[in-house]
């Protein structure tokens, strides 16, 4: 039987090598391109024939816009509007990538740590630069604990800095672990459908089949939830960087 981890294998579709670097167009790249095309198409088609009473696609486009716009104004406030394009792109990319990954025979690029880490480190570096540009040296007061004796500073400041540096790791691992675990679980239970069904003339396969239907629904929820968590944490980090004073 196929390994439940086989679905995460990177396969080159069009091998390209430039100066010893393997930059092949892989199934992961294909999934990302599909996500970009679908996301762009959804928003462009949705708003191309905008009417007062929105149709289905227009509703989806408007709802996702309002969702992220609301998230930003709730967490960051009025200044958050400037960062809307970034957070919205990130949210849509992760959400559509997660959802596309649930289709049979597709590939979930968010189940690769390097993809989620690249996104998280972009957010982290961007937010740090934002804080440094906005507050100059005041940014470092972020790490200084209030009301703590001076003698404790050498201990607490490194802890704060490590805590700050651990942000991109917890941000990326959260998304990656959820997608990896969910998709592995689906494949394992899927294997039970065949394995149990084969020895009991199909009857034993019914229970895991019911379970996998429920789990697929749960995976759709997780796809939304993880995209939301990534977006809201990005908003909180932006808020932290902006409001140090």
């Amino acid at each position: 039987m196929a390994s439940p981890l086989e679905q995460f294998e990177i396969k080159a579709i069009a091998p390209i090598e430039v100066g010893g670097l393997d930059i092949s167009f892989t199934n992961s790249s294909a999934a990302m391109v599909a996500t970009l095309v679908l996301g762009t198409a959804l928003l462009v088609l949705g708003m191309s024939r905008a009417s007062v009473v929105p149709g289905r696609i227009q509703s989806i486009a408007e709802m996702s816009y309002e969702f992220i716009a609301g998230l930003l104004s709730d967490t960051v406030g009025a200044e958050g509007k400037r960062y809307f394009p970034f957070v919205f792109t990130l949210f849509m990319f992760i959400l559509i990538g997660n959802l596309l990954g649930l289709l049979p025979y597709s590939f979930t690029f968010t189940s690769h740590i390097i993809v989620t880490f690249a996104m998280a480190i972009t957010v982290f570096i961007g937010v740090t630069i934002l804080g440094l540009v906005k507050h100059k040296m005041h940014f470092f007061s972020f790490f200084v604990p209030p009301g703590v004796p001076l003698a404790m500073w050498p201990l607490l400041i490194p802890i704060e800095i490590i805590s700050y540096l651990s942000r991109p790791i917890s941000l990326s691992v959260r998304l990656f672990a959820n997608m990896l675990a969910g998709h592995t679980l689906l494949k394992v239970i899927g294997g039970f459908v065949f394995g149990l069904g084969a020895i009991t003339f199909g009857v034993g396969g019914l229970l895991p089949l019911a379970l996998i239907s429920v789990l697929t629904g749960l995976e759709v929820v997780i796809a939304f939830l993880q995209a939301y968590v990534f977006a809201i944490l990005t908003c909180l980090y932006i808020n932290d960087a902006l409001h140090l004073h």
Partner: protein
Amino acid sequence: MSGVGLALRLGVDFVAGVVVGVGIGLLLDWWLGSSPAMLIVFFLLGAAAGTFNVFRTASGQGGAVGFKQARDAETDATDGSDKKRGSNARDDSKSSE
């Protein structure tokens, strides 16, 4: 967020602190040739940072890092400025401090 989701988040928050601490420790050891002194020191600091992360997540301070937020919340409460800041989760931090 579901119970499993919260548990996973707390776990990841803790491990992330330890990973960064150990990473810094190994890098410093490699650079200074002081193996394993820096690894031990930064493992402990990383574990402390991880515990801090878990505490902040569990006490509803969201993705907060740093003390600035809590200090500002205190001054906001005293001078009564109406500056809009933070989500509901963030507002809880005012009462916990």
